[in-house]
């Protein structure tokens, strides 16, 4: 009649198995935090969600100040404001409140 192996012998077997398969021998199942080290880093994935970084005209202008680039849309807007102001249709001055009676 074969006797069952002793706990010490079983532990030794587990230890050997861990050595062979290069896993951590942790008989008391203590929390070592290794699962955090095993986690994949999500940084590259999350930062590539939006297709391309937004580049505004002002960024290009700031990058090449020696070119003296002119933002035509902005210039048009300012010209329109100046035109309206000449015609007396501009925005009222700040702080002056007029009431129509």
């Amino acid at each position, binding site marked *: 009649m074969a006797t069952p192996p002793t706990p010490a012998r079983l532990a030794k077997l587990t230890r050997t198995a861990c050595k062979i398969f290069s896993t951590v021998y942790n008989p008391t199942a*203590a929390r*070592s*935090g290794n699962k*955090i080290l095993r986690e994949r*880093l*999500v940084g590259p994935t999350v930062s590539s969600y*939006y*297709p391309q970084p937004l580049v505004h005209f002002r960024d290009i202008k700031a990058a090449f100040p020696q070119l003296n680039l002119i933002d035509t849309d902005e210039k048009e807007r300012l010209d329109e404001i100046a035109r309206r102001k000449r015609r007396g249709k501009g925005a009222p001055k700040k702080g002056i409140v007029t009431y129509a009676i």
Partner: protein
Amino acid sequence: MRSRILRDMKARTAVANNELIRQAYRYITRNETLPARTRHQAQLALNSLPTNTAPVFLRNRCLETGHGSGVFREFRLCRFQFRLKALNGELPGVKKSSW
């Protein structure tokens, strides 16, 4: 809605930049073989990091509208924009089904 997207972009950069330090603190906190004092200090350091460096702070938003809910992960569009684009034939391989 653009501002929400910008905020999310900023948070994504912050998450990517702070990921290693966060994971290091998390490892120390979760490791029960380390002294309790060290683990507590690591937890406090983790708590003191800016909120937008936490990955849970991120939200997948619609690329077209910046909408924060009902966003398909695969197309990165909210459900309405997805429908519009799909019906317009702008999404390859997407077809309206009928049976």
